[in-house]
């Protein structure tokens, strides 16, 4: 089977075809839920719950309108008296005998997600870069134990951590604040950042810095001007991993935030419509929330393996 013209280990053409067909089939099937939720976001509420499930439908922006607004029911006479609708969303809402009452909480929650994710990523990468450099270049006493300690903090069950954090934040007035969440996510992410970045820094030959320091650079200058530029790829990859974690995190967010600092993951499941779930709005909220992750996955595909194994597998 493996005896082909090119190499004894090159799979035969048939093997390749069959393998390709199975893998592509798996990929397509595993994409179905995502495609479905994306399609649902463009359905009208009746279409979204029709039986049998509808593959062909008239796309509408109703889900997106409902996601971003709150609406109140009005009499047809009242709506008629309003005159021409100003926006597409106005028109869609009025066709359902409703008027837009105001913005929904989705956008503020989305903003919270961004602030908390970017803030904690920045801090985690900053601290992680320093610590990784320290571990990579200096003889730190108990380095292995410290590294294990840093990793172990990430293994704790989040709910177990959340109990004392909840009490501590209540004492400190950090409950339901963006600062509290940033600090918490930084602490969770810094372990990943240290491990990944140490791996990246270990790969930068120390001779570069030695040469720079012989040329008169101080240790800090060598770090800043020689090591950091070399580590840019690693730092960027690490940052994206931290960003994804903070973006996706739910357990801490649902237990420690309720209003002001609530992020999108605990908010999206609470989207409901009149008399049941508003699935198109949920679909819209999910789609908007997932798009950045899809972009990052494509950007990260080469570093993914390293990130998910804390740098254990590098390839």
């Amino acid at each position, binding site marked *: 089977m493996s*005896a082909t013209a090119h190499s*004894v280990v090159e799979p035969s053409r048939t093997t*390749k075809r069959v*393998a*390709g067909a199975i*893998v592509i089939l*798996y*990929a397509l099937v*595993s*994409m*179905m*839920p995502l495609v*479905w*939720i994306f399609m649902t976001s463009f359905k009208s509420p009746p279409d979204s719950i029709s039986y049998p*499930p509808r593959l062909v439908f008239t796309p509408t922006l109703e889900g997106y309108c409902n996601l971003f607004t709150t609406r109140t029911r009005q009499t047809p006479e009242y709506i008629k008296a309003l005159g021409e609708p100003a926006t597409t969303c106005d028109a869609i809402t009025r066709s359902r005998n409703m008027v837009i009452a105001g913005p929904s909480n989705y956008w503020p929650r989305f903003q919270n997600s961004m602030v908390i994710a970017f803030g904690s990523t920045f801090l985690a990468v900053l*601290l992680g870069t*320093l*610590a990784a450099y*320290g*571990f*990579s270049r*200096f003889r730190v*006493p108990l*380095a*292995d*134990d410290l*590294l*294990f300690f840093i990793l172990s*903090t990430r*293994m704790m*069950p*989040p*709910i177990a*951590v*959340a*109990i*004392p*954090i*909840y*009490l*501590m934040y209540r004492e400190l007035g950090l409950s339901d604040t963006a600062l509290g969440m940033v600090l918490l996510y930084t*602490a969770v992410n810094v372990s990943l950042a240290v491990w990944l970045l140490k791996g990246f820094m*270990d790969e930068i030959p120390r001779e570069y810095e030695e040469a720079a320091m012989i040329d008169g650079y101080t*240790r800090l200058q060598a770090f800043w001007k020689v090591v950091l530029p070399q580590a840019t790829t690693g730092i960027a990859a690490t940052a994206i991993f931290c960003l*994804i974690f903070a973006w*996706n995190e*739910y*357990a801490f967010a649902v237990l420690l935030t309720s209003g002001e600092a609530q992020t999108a*993951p605990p908010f*999206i*499941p609470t989207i409901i419509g009149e008399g049941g*779930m508003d699935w198109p709005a*949920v*679909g819209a909220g999910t789609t908007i929330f*997932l798009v950045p992750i899809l972009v990052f*996955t494509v950007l990260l*595909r080469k570093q993914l393996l390293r990130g998910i194994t804390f740098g*254990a597998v*590098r*390839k």
Partner: protein
Amino acid sequence: MQELRSGKPTVTDANASILDRAANAAARATPEPMVKSVRGLSDWAVGWIFIAPTIILLLAINIFPLIWAIRLSFTNYRANRPNAEVVNVGLDNYRRILGDSDIWIAMQTTAHFVFWTILLQTLIGFTLAWLIDRRFRSHAFWTTIILIPMMLSPAIVGNFWRFLYQPQIGLFNYVVSFLTGVDPSSFEMLGSVRLAPWSIIIVDTWMWTPYVMLICLAGLRSIPDYIYEAAEVDRASNWRQFWSITLPMALPFIMLAVLFRGIENFKMFDMVNLLTGGGPGSTTEVASITLKREAFEKWRTGYSSAFAIILFVAVFGLANIYVKALNRVKSR
């Protein structure tokens, strides 16, 4: 392989024993001092200045609360009654947890979930990795597509699978009925006691099979071609090559994936919380859900702290036992 330098198995060492490259990197954790001193500061001190902020943050956000939780676990403290008198109850909480049948049922539910998800993910993940390693055309593109589910937020995934699992209108029921002819409104994945545990296993497998696949793929790619070439010269059958070369050489990677997934699924919370919330009844109430109910619904803070500590110790126990097994496989 110079593993377990300190004699005690840690995850640090597990990772190191996976790849010689990683082991070497770990060995360089205590490198030669490059320069003896920097502007009067010893190398030792400069190193600490770099590391200290991280350690301080972790002490403040992880270790201090952990110690607090340990202290609370010996009391009857309730977070919703901050002014009530706190009585020291000694080991009572721990004793009650170990005798609590609900806790044991939750542990069984967790074990069922962990066992089946890992089994399915390893089988499917390894098969996929092996197929992708046949290097068919456009395999890189399809690999990236397959990886997408594991990057998503487990909470969001749980939430939209709730939609797919709706009886009658849901896509899942529809597809099942399309393939098998069963009436789509005749079964409820989330509402039935029999099916609910499988509904969370299916979603977890959908989401995390790519993870196992990716690590297995790295394992398969780490096997050098010349070994297969030698086997070919010796006229070893494909079947024989798979069992004596491919599988043993990829095994440390498979076990690494199993370790990571095992620990993650042991603490599984978000996806299950949104999909079933532990229900119906408590059929899908995995350990983290029980913990959340005790801590944030019943507000038995002392009791739940004790449970949290037990879970925490269990995660580390599992990891350590596993690492020992991993090293045994490696040294074979």
